[in-house]
């Protein structure tokens, strides 16, 4: 069982009468991309928040690297190596692309409480930032303020920040959202490469990308995982087709 990086065990979260997570169990294994799909309102983001640490589950547990992290907050989980991107792009708008990535590297290396030397002159952080900016194809844009980036570039910046954390697992919430076909293709290539670095729990609406990337897929409907399996198994699963893929065909 050492292959399991993240395991979610019987997680439940209720908001009033709404069961946002209903006894959810799933795991993320070394080297894989595990896609989490489901219609809007299925509770995907609620689940991601509970895994990342922003939201406490009512019952159940989250294990990360074999350790029960259910009681830890976001910061503690990030420090353990959980790299996260957000559904709505979340970067530091007034910093440049390079500074954003540098900040992530600074978080990893715990250098925040240095008050005198210039952060931008820190060779260790610079090297890390340079590498990630290059990998995500943002070199030409590294001096631009994050607020001035195009949407697709901002999504790539988020990936660069997650990478700079040198995470043990990625938690990516709709990295393709709002991207054109070219952007999606580029992002697919980046993610495809990423799984060797650390496994990815991927929430995504873009079915082409999910089917191209995922090793396994879990389908979440009304807070419950109704199926988990390989791409072919999920495609063939009648319940999934009815609950989710069928709907998509009609629209």
């Amino acid at each position, binding site marked *: 069982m050492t292959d399991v990086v993240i395991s979610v065990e019987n997680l439940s979260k209720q908001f009033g009468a709404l069961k946002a997570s209903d006894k959810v169990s799933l795991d993320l294994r070394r080297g894989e991309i595990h896609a989490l799909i489901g219609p809007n309102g299925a509770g995907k983001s609620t689940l991601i928040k509970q895994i990342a640490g922003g939201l406490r589950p009512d019952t159940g547990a989250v294990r990360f690297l074999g350790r029960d992290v259910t009681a830890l907050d976001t*910061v503690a989980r990030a420090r353990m190596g959980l790299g996260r991107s957000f559904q709505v792009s979340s970067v*530091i708008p*007034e910093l440049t692309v390079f500074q954003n990535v540098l900040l992530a590297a*600074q978080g990893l290396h715990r250098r925040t409480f240095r008050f005198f030397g210039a952060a931008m002159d820190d060779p260790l952080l610079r090297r890390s930032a340079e590498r990630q900016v290059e990998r995500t194809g943002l070199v030409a844009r590294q001096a631009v303020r994050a607020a001035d980036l195009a949407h697709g570039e901002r999504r790539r910046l988020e990936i660069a920040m997650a990478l700079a954390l040198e995470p043990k697992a990625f938690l990516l919430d709709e990295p393709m959202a709002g991207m054109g076909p070219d952007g999606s293709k580029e992002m697919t290539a980046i993610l495809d490469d990423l799984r060797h670095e650390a496994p990815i729990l991927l929430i995504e609406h873009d079915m082409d990308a999910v089917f191209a990337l995922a090793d396994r897929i879990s389908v979440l409907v009304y807070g419950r995982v109704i199926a988990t399996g390989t791409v072919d198994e999920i495609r063939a699963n009648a319940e999934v087709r009815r609950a989710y893929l069928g709907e998509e065909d009609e629209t």
Partner: protein
Amino acid sequence: MRRETIVNIVLAAGFLAVPLVAWFIDEPFIVTLATRVAILALAGVGLNIALGYGGLVSFGHAAFFGLGGYAMGVLASHAQNFEPLATWPFEVSGTKSMLVIWLVALIVSGLAAAVIGALSLRTGGVYFIMITLAFAQMLFFFTISWPAYGGEDGLSIYVRNSFPGLNTLDPIQFFAVCAAVLFAAIFLSGRLVRSHFGLALQSARQNAERVEAVGIRPFDVRLAAFIASGMVTGLAGALFADLNRFVSPAMFSWQTSGEIIVFVILGGVGRLFGPLAGAALFILLEHWLGGLTTYWQFLLGLLLLGVVLFFRGGLIGTLAGREVAHD
């Protein structure tokens, strides 16, 4: 060179030139006016760390300004009356040495900022503003009702405290001390902004959730910034008390907190030289408009309204343009 750097140099040169010229033509009043600018600007430099870079709208920085002032007042009054401050467990006497007083002012205001910050930074927005205000008001009423150090009437110190090698009663020499402290503080806060810590502080202001996701705790960063901020403003309070040779509860008043905010806003929030520009403008207005009408603050209010509505970057922002990202 960045345009803001040029604006800063011109501003600093003008700020130093005015009292020097005044000294040559024997106008000590103008030298003293410039000294006030230096000290109030220093208080603003302190607030700017919290407000400008950290986005923490403290409406209670008078607490630190006043604590710095009373640190000076208490130490110097014991020294001038030859009464020990404490006799147990060992004898502690007052002092007339500026350097010791500054150290005490820094420590006292830093400790106060740690306590106030630890409680108030758990909230945000309007609640943060009100809690910081409440702490300053508590100290205000405490000093009013504490007769040992003058209560409502305040505390007079007859001779200005001493600085090694200088005659601090000479206005130009005391100005030099205050200006040196001010520029040291501006230099240090400039380093702070560009440091690892400054990067995290400014990031926490803009997107705290993101900062958490990279493993940095915004609360810790903000608390450290609030402490540094309070210490600088506390030091300004000690100098202000020395300038006037008088401390009173008015230093703790909410008007004082408001004025420090006004310096920062007039000069430009989050601009390195903003507090100096703002304090200089404030004193000039107080001097000129105050000569025209006793209701000059009405005109100040109009100006502030204009700055907030049309010149968001304050004086520095208007002259230097939009802030460029630090490279």
